[in-house]
């Protein structure tokens, strides 16, 4: 790394702090090495790292149901802190903080210069094979800068929160090692200057996601959730790979630099470019949890709550949005693919939002909410509002990280109360909560900010980003290449209008389910239990501190990209900032269409806000937290509510339609038939049997009788002599 060379010496960033861009991913990697070494050395000294030894404290956070067999809580011991906890608490968040500081310095340097071309730092030649020349290179441009700031900034806050949340976990160094490794791969994903390098990060974050979902792996459900995430993601990665192959075969380069010119070879809206984009989108559906591959994300809540906040809400799951924004030049050439992205995103947003209406587990509500909001982001990048998609990605990172960390702090308090009274109830079920406002006022206030933000109430962050996406969908339905394209015979403008309506409907549902979550968690009477109530208390400051920062960001994040209609600050900062990266593609997607008239835009904003307000009012009017009873006493739900609570039975459907047939075919055909029958039976054992048979036949010639041998010898000699003499 030290012999990094900068070919573009003329680049304005070449002499600034940006030349240390390789240090960004290196810092978390360093943290991973240190924490990993501490985890291993601790394990080596005190015996195998057995998380079941002390998991009584935290396992109940995430899978508290049916936990009685663990016998936790019967003794009053409080697990001692890990012996390396001190140094790990410094290294883990420390490297993130350093990386964030470096990122801010680079950001300031970038603001100081005028750059049109991205800054590419070549490290070394990675795969020079014939025409395929792939370099290990980092690309720092406006888009990757935004992502790096989100990842390191939100990441630092979540690391700090984890210090409090995970304090008594026996796997403390291991946790931070994985978390640091995740940030390393995530930075590699956004900083890589070509698709293969992005793919390395893409796979790496998947690995870390797997490791962290199954962090408490001694519980089988957690381990299974990790496996499910990993396998479902592999399906998506297959699409990513195929897209890369197609791209190289047809365009001849995998670097972002020069992609715009190289892609001109392909016909606009042709089959090849559409296929490339659709295969990329298959990758996105896996990583970013869209229909049909979203099923892993709700299960991923089995991991520790800060992990859900960092990986499964703020950063990793948005990688698909980043991928499309990064490939905006390709997607703008394929209107059909873009329409598909928008439609799938819209359907996912609505579908997940309906499921979120009837979940009782506080983290499950947030998980489906994440799936739904990711759907919004895809609607944004699908209709060519790349800035809006990235903007929503950013505001979502703020408010969803806040919601997850807030729920983490609620679960923390709930669990502490249950732990103190040796109760084994579910610490994550909202039916066991209620009235927590009195006990946790800071968390309550901050989570309300995040809820208003996600519901789209002005002036909180989510309002601006969501409104920009919906407004762009409406505009694209009226003009531009998308409105004239057709998707499966349906005209583009009809598809976009459907997406717009779906978006509005999802916004309504979002307001309802988020308000429902807040009402059931924080308002109404407390249902935790009389003995437990005395132990409910706000989480320590190391946990609420990051929440406050995220609360400020959720409240004022919208100022980063204000629409022209609301001149309450600088207009469209993010849009101007991202203009060199996505400007060309955005212009192409906008077509020659005029801007939507200001009056219409006011109406659109009014409708969006009205819907959010209606949703929250409906939730307040209809939901009666006083009527709720504890989870153990709750009756099973009926009718459509039951269908929603069981997530439309999609998991069961996948199990019957895909998993079981695959297992059946694997067992009967592939294992018993091909492997045991043909490979083992015919080839391995068969060749052995043939050899043995021929050996037996040969051995029959060896009678051991010297006379016989002599006869054979003589006959042979005579035959040879006869042959030689007669041929003469």
């Amino acid at each position, binding site marked *: 790394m030290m012999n990094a060379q900068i070919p573009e010496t003329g680049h304005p960033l070449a002499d600034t702090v940006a030349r240390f861009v390789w240090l960004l991913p290196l810092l978390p990697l360093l943290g991973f090495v240190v924490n990993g070494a501490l985890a291993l050395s601790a394990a080596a000294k005190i015996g195998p790292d057995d998380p079941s030894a002390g998991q009584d404290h935290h396992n109940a956070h995430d899978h508290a149901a049916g936990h009685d067999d663990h016998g936790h809580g019967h003794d009053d011991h409080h697990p001692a802190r890990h012996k390396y906890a001190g140094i790990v608490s410094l290294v883990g968040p420390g490297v993130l903080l350093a990386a964030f500081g470096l990122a801010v310095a680079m950001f300031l340097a970038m603001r100081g210069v005028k750059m049109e071309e991205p800054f590419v730092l070549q490290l070394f030649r990675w795969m020079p094979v014939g025409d395929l020349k792939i370099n290990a290179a980092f690309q720092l441009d406006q888009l990757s800068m935004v992502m790096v700031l989100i990842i390191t900034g939100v990441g630092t806050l979540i690391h700090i929160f984890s210090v409090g949340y995970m304090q008594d976990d026996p796997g403390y160094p291991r946790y931070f090692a994985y978390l640091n490794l995740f940030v390393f791969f995530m930075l590699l994903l956004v900083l890589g200057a070509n698709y293969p390098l992005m793919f390395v990060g893409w796979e790496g974050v998947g690995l870390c996601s797997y490791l962290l979902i199954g962090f408490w792996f001694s519980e089988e459900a957690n381990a299974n959730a990790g496996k499910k995430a990993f396998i479902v993601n592999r399906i998506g990665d297959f699409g990513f790979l195929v897209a890369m192959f197609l791209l190289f075969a047809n365009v001849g380069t995998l670097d972002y630099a020069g992609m715009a010119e190289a892609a001109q070879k392909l016909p606009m809206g042709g089959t090849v470019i559409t296929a490339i984009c659709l295969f990329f989108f298959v990758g996105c559906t896996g990583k970013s949890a869209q229909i049909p591959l979203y099923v892993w994300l709700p299960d991923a809540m089995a991991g520790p709550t800060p992990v859900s906040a960092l990986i499964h809400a703020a950063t990793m799951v948005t990688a698909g949005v980043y991928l499309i924004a990064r490939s905006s030049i390709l997607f703008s050439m394929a209107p059909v693919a873009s329409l598909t992205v928008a439609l799938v995103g819209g359907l996912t947003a609505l579908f997940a939002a309906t499921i979120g209406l009837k979940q009782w587990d506080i983290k499950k509500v947030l998980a489906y909410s994440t799936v739904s909001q990711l759907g919004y982001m895809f609607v944004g990048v699908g209709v060519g509002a790349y800035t809006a998609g990235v903007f929503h990605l950013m505001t979502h990172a703020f408010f969803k990280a806040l919601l997850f960390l807030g729920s983490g702090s609620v679960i923390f308090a709930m669990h502490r109360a249950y732990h103190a009274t040796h109760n084994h109830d579910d610490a994550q079920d909202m039916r066991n909560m209620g009235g927590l406002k009195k006990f946790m006022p800071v968390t309550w206030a901050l989570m309300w900010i995040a809820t208003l933000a996600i519901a789209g109430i002005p002036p909180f962050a989510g309002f601006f980003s969501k409104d920009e996406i919906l407004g762009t969908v409406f505009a694209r339905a009226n003009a531009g290449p998308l409105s004239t394209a057709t998707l499966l015979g349906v005209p583009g403008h009809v598809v976009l209008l459907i997406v717009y309506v779906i978006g509005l409907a999802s916004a309504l549902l979002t307001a309802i389910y988020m308000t429902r979550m807040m009402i059931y968690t924080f308002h109404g009477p407390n249902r935790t239990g009389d003995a437990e109530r005395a132990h409910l208390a706000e989480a320590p400051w190391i946990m609420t501190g990051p929440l406050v920062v995220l609360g400020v960001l959720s409240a004022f994040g919208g100022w980063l990209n204000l629409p022209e209609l609301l001149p309450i600050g600088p207009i469209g900062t993010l849009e101007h900032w991202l203009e060199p990266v996505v400007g060309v593609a955005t212009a192409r997607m906008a077509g020659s269409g005029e801007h939507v008239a200001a009056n219409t835009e006011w109406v659109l904003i009014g409708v969006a806000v009205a819907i959010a307000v209606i949703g929250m009012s409906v939730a307040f009017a209809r939901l009666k937290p006083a009527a709720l009873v504890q989870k153990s006493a709750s009756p099973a739900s009926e009718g459509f509510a039951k269908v929603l609570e069981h997530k439309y039975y999609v998991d069961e459907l996948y199990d019957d339609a895909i998993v079981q047939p695959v297992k059946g075919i694997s067992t009967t055909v592939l294992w018993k038939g091909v492997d045991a029958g043909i490979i083992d039976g015919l080839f391995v054992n068969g060749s052995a049997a043939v050899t043995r048979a021929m050996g037996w036949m040969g051995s029959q*010639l060896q009678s051991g009788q010297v006379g016989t041998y*002599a006869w054979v010898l003589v006959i042979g000699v005579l035959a040879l002599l006869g042959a030689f003499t007669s041929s003469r």
Partner: protein
Amino acid sequence: MLAESLALSAALFAIGVVGVLTRRNAMIVFMCVELMLNAVNLSFVALSRLYGATGQVFVIFVMTVAAAEAAVGLAIVIAIFRHKQTVDLQNINLLRG
């Protein structure tokens, strides 16, 4: 003279071959092998009249090898006899597969 010598040699060789093929006693088979070797020696000597002394030199080699072979072969035969109290080849099939 050459023709007679070669004919005698061929006859001796044939006798040796028939002996090897038909007799069961290891000693007799062994002697028949010697007979075959000496039949060849005879033809070497006879042909050396035509082609020079090479054949005679070769006979010395053959006799040396035959002597060595006799020493080893007889030792094996004695060892087998001590072990099995017989040298009938039909009873000796240690090499059977």
